[in-house]
């Protein structure tokens, strides 16, 4: 017993000595003179994390007191005025002496006084005033200039190539994803800084448990405007060749720590698209399963039957949107009991849009090619009312959210078409009424217990009612009429328990019920060849299912490595079809931080998409006046494999940002579309057959900001290719390949104090290949876009701006199109009264129309879109 005790003592002692091994030594120069003040740093060998350090004393001696646990470590010895030395040493080599060679002190003359970008852990802070100038109209204009940040045309903000997942004002989620209106109306002069929150998990309780690769954005206001009312009225009057123009805005904003209010009234007929302000730009990535109510509403936001319109050109809408738009929103936030953020958001949109032009469609139908030219004049009137009431408590140990969402919209579209195919011409008037009523509620609760384990509960449901009609009347007053009534209801509840240990384990179980009804009736379709059976003209279908699901998940979240694997299993039972299906949807996500600059993410997911009744209509549905579609009584079963990999680089010191992404998708379906035509009338019937589409996306973005010349350079490239199959007439199997390739380069500079200049060059090449036994087609279109913008800052009060855009488009029939657009603006600011007067001149070159080409499966369409004429607008704005 005594021996065992002695042995144990000796072993413990040895272990103690071994575990406390450290380094010491003496530092001298090349003349063997001791050097004092030298830093000796001990780094973990692979991760380069600083483990311990020591400073040499007046006798040149150093001693690292902290015990070293790794077998081998890197020693780095450095001091200003001497060359640095590094050594990889085993921890048993306790004595380490160094001799340093003197060198000239290298330090930039002045490193940087107050840099514009600082980083603290995962938060990057951009000092807004360092990037802004008096030519910038709003916060959105300044965001475009920030290194690593991009703002897309629809308002989406991206950080290092990926869309942000939250937009906060003073840390509060007032806008709930609809942040375009914020960036368009916040004055940059009121903003102190913008923070990018990297790897942002919006639920605080899940930080370090469910990692996120997306960033959040937080706008911090200046002390001088915090919790104060900012009121601004802007009125604009103008003229183009046809109409008087107006563009008015009233802003009433107050951003405080516990109460926030944002009310805007906008009204214009100058081509500013206000419907874009109603769109949510953030993606719900909370891994909830089934998505959020907003994403489902977006899917159902399009009429099944609609008028045949013109494809919108890839131009800024201010050039082609003939509108009369009115938009009112009031978003208010109150923090109750210090933790409950209550947001009431009400918005109303009344939007009228008109467009004119023609489509030249080419359909490859197997035996022959169908060409249709359609001269169009269309009108759309949208009325939309939305209300959201949310209560969110986002605490480190507790999360609660309840979101009630109501939307009603009534939309009327009318269009007249003069079509021409072969030698036949026809005049059609189309009328479409599309209404939507939506109500949903989402409740979510998470709580951490004393052992840091988490219990989650979620319950949500929605109801959608959508009556739709489409009438097509020809010159003989023959009416083709389609009536649709679509109703959907859905409820889901689940509970999830997360065992929060080193390896996170979660167990989830829940149930879901959905009921969908479709009443459809088609009358007077001109082609009896395509609709020979009258029983295929109307349907009254119901489709309901119950799904029970369970999931186990595993996660690891260390400082560098994050891993998440979830294995959900579902049992789905279709009531009306008395059919069941059992499936799993595995998902895996990994991310690795190589260093503070380099990181990489990889993920794979398999999804089974539960069929929607609108994909399962057994009767023909009139998609537009000449296209019908039905499902040949086969329940759609769609599956998707998606794999993505990304590599990211950022250096906030030298302002380099880079990312490259690869995405591979395979979409498998049990249905394939069979196409038939009778003159210009086309029918598509989905029949049972294995069908798979593949797509590959490659993209790279590089951004560099040079502080000394206040210039941002961006370079982007992308490649997208898709492969699909389709059955053309005579059962010809067609392989369809679509390819898109793009390259863009941009410079935004304020090198000179009086000049803000930007240059953007974009090239896009689109290709379409169709191959059957009898057909082999290849169509290609090219577009080069060059935008050059100059803002002359004469003084803090007076600016002049000029923007020139050139489009060079090469269509498949080798008709080259060259367009020039020229806009001008000038702003004068009366400082004393805070009044701003601006003059805008648009389309000075008076381009009349714009032509684009688009590909869709086995068809290509050239669209000629009429543009807004020259216009002049005088605006006056003041704060009150």
């Amino acid at each position, binding site marked *: 017993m005594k021996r065992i005790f002695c042995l144990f003592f000796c072993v413990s002692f040895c272990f103690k000595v071994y575990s406390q091994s450290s380094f010491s030594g003496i530092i001298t120069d090349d003349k063997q003179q001791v050097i004092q*003040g030298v830093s000796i740093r001990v780094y973990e060998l692979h991760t380069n994390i600083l483990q311990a350090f020591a400073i040499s004393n007046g006798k040149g001696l150093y001693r690292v007191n902290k015990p070293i646990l790794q077998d081998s470590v890197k020693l780095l010895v*450095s001091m200003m005025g001497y060359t*640095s030395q590094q050594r990889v040493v085993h921890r048993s080599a306790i004595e380490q002496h160094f001799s340093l060679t003197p060198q000239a002190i290298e*330090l930039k003359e002045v490193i940087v006084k*107050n840099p514009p970008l600082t980083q603290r852990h995962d938060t990057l802070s951009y000092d807004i005033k360092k990037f802004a100038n008096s030519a910038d109209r709003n916060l959105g204009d300044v965001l475009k200039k920030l290194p690593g940040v991009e703002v897309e045309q629809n308002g989406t903000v991206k950080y290092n190539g990926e869309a942000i997942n939250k937009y906060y004002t003073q840390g509060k989620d007032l806008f709930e994803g609809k942040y375009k209106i914020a960036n368009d109306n916040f004055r940059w002069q009121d903003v102190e800084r913008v923070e990018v929150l990297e790897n942002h998990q919006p639920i605080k309780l899940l930080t370090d448990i469910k990692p996120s690769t997306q960033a959040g954005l937080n706008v911090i206001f200046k002390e001088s405007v915090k919790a104060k009312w900012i009121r601004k009225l802007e009125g604009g009057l103008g003229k183009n060749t046809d109409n008087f123009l107006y563009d008015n805005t009233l802003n009433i904003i107050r951003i405080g720590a516990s109460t926030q209010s944002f009310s805007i009234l906008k009204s214009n007929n100058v081509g500013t698209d206000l419907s874009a302000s109603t769109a949510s730009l953030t993606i719900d990535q909370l891994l909830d399963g089934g998505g959020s109510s907003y994403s489902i509403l977006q899917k159902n936001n399009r009429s099944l039957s609609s008028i045949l319109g013109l494809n919108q050109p890839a131009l800024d809408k201010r050039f082609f949107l003939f509108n009369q738009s009115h938009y009112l929103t009031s978003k208010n936030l109150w923090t109750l009991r210090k933790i409950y953020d209550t947001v009431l958001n009400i918005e109303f949109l009344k939007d009228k849009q008109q467009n004119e032009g023609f489509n030249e469609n080419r359909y490859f139908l197997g035996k022959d090619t169908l060409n249709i030219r359609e001269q169009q004049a269309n009108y759309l009137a949208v009325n939309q009312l939305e209300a959201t009431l949310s209560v969110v408590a986002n605490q480190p140990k507790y999360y609660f959210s309840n979101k009630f969402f109501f939307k009603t919209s009534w939309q009327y579209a009318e269009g007249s078409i003069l079509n021409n195919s072969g030698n036949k011409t026809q005049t059609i008037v189309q009328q479409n009424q599309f209404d939507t009523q939506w109500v949903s509620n989402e409740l979510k609760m998470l709580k951490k217990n004393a052992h840091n384990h988490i219990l989650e509960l979620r319950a949500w449901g929605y109801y959608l009612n959508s009556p739709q009609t489409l009438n097509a009347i020809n010159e003989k007053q023959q009416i083709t009429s389609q009536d649709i009534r679509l109703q959907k209801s859905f409820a889901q509840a689940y509970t999830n328990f997360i065992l929060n240990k080193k390896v996170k384990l979660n167990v989830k179980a829940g149930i879901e019920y959905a009921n969908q009804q479709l009443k459809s009736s088609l009358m007077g379709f001109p082609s009896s060849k395509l609709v020979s059976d009258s029983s295929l003209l109307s349907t009254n279908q119901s489709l309901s299912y119950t799904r029970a699901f369970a999931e186990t998940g595993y996660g690891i979240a260390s400082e560098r490595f994050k891993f998440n694997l979830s294995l959900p299993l579902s049992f789905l039972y279709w009531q009306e079809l008395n059919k069941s299906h059992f499936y799993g949807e595995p998902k895996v996500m990994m991310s690795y931080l190589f260093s503070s600059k380099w990181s990489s993410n990889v993920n794979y997911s398999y999804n089974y998409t539960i069929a929607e009744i609108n994909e399962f209509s057994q009767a023909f549905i009139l998609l537009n006046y000449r296209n019908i579609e039905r499902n040949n009584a086969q329940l759609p079963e769609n599956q998707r494999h998606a794999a993505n990999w990304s590599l990211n680089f950022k250096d906030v010191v030298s302002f380099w940002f880079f990312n490259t992404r690869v995405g591979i998708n395979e979409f498998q379906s049990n249905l394939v579309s069979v196409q038939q035509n009778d003159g210009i009338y086309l029918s598509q019937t989905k029949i049972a057959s294995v069908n798979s589409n593949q797509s590959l996306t490659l993209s790279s973005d590089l951004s560099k900001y040079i502080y000394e010349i206040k210039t941002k350079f961006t370079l982007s490239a992308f490649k997208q290719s898709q492969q699909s199959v389709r059955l053309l007439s005579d059962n010809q199997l067609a392989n369809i390949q679509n390819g898109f390739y793009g390259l863009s380069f941009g410079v935004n500079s304020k090198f000179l104090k009086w000049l803000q200049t930007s240059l953007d060059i974009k090239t896009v090449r689109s290709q379409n290949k169709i191959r059957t036994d009898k057909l082999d087609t290849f169509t290609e279109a090219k577009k080069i876009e060059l935008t050059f913008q100059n803002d002359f800052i004469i003084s803090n009060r007076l600016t002049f701006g000029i923007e020139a855009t050139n489009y060079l488009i090469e269509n498949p029939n080798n008709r080259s199109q060259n367009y020039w657009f020229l806009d001008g603006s000038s702003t004068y600011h009366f400082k004393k009264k805070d009044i701003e007067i601006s003059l805008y001149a648009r389309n000075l070159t008076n381009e009349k129309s714009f032509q684009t080409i688009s590909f869709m499966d086995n068809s290509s369409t050239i669209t000629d879109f009429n543009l807004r004429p020259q216009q002049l607008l005088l605006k006056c704005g003041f704060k009150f």
Partner: protein
Amino acid sequence: MKKLNTLIIILLISICNTKAQIISERAYMLCNYSCKSVSDTSRRDSTTKEVASLEIGKSGSYYYSINHKNHEKAMLDFKNNHAGERRKPGESLKMILAMGTPMKVYKNHKESSIVYFDKIALSYYTFEEEMPTFDWIIQPDTMTVLNQICQKATCYFRGRSYEAWFSQAIAVSEGPWKFNGLPGLILKIKDSRNDYVFDAIEIKKIDYDIPTETPIAQKVSKEKFLSIYKYFLTDPMMGVDIKKINPNIKLSNTALPWNPLELTDK
């Protein structure tokens, strides 16, 4: 009477000046810090701001307030060029407000010592102490300051908990005030109560001698200095009833707030 005697003794001591021993070498780098401090903890919203410089040589460093240096220069200019003249209204107040902290800190790493100068009332005092040991703990957090990636380190020192951010790329074990001992220059440091915040705002390469020309000061022990300082704070007029001298002066003998950097000896 007792207080008056004390004042006389202090004044007499200040006449018998000595000069503390400080290092003489060339400085190769200068770091300017923006310094914010709260002198009265009951009024945390009222902060004092000034800019201080740290001149760094191979064996030591010199830390001083630029505001105070400018103030002393202005006082000297006025004395030399406008002797006997009355200052313009408001000019005196402006000079007092911009005077900054008179404290000067000379670090001598060879001798492992610090020579400290500070002004109490009208006189400078100096004392020498051993270079203090800071038990820094390296934290994994990083942040950029002046475009340098900085590592976080924390420590407890003489009554306050500090959070420091140092740059490993600038391999010099220095920092503002007495702070040092990290494997890189401290670019930001603050205490947990935000009473004292030092932020680097500029780093320059320089090549001139660290000034050895120190103010005429009375050499005392650190303990003696603290007792004089505490006495001064409790009675800023040093026992003199100013109203007896001039009843029209609206100055009271109330104590000044006590919130120094060093709250305890250890």
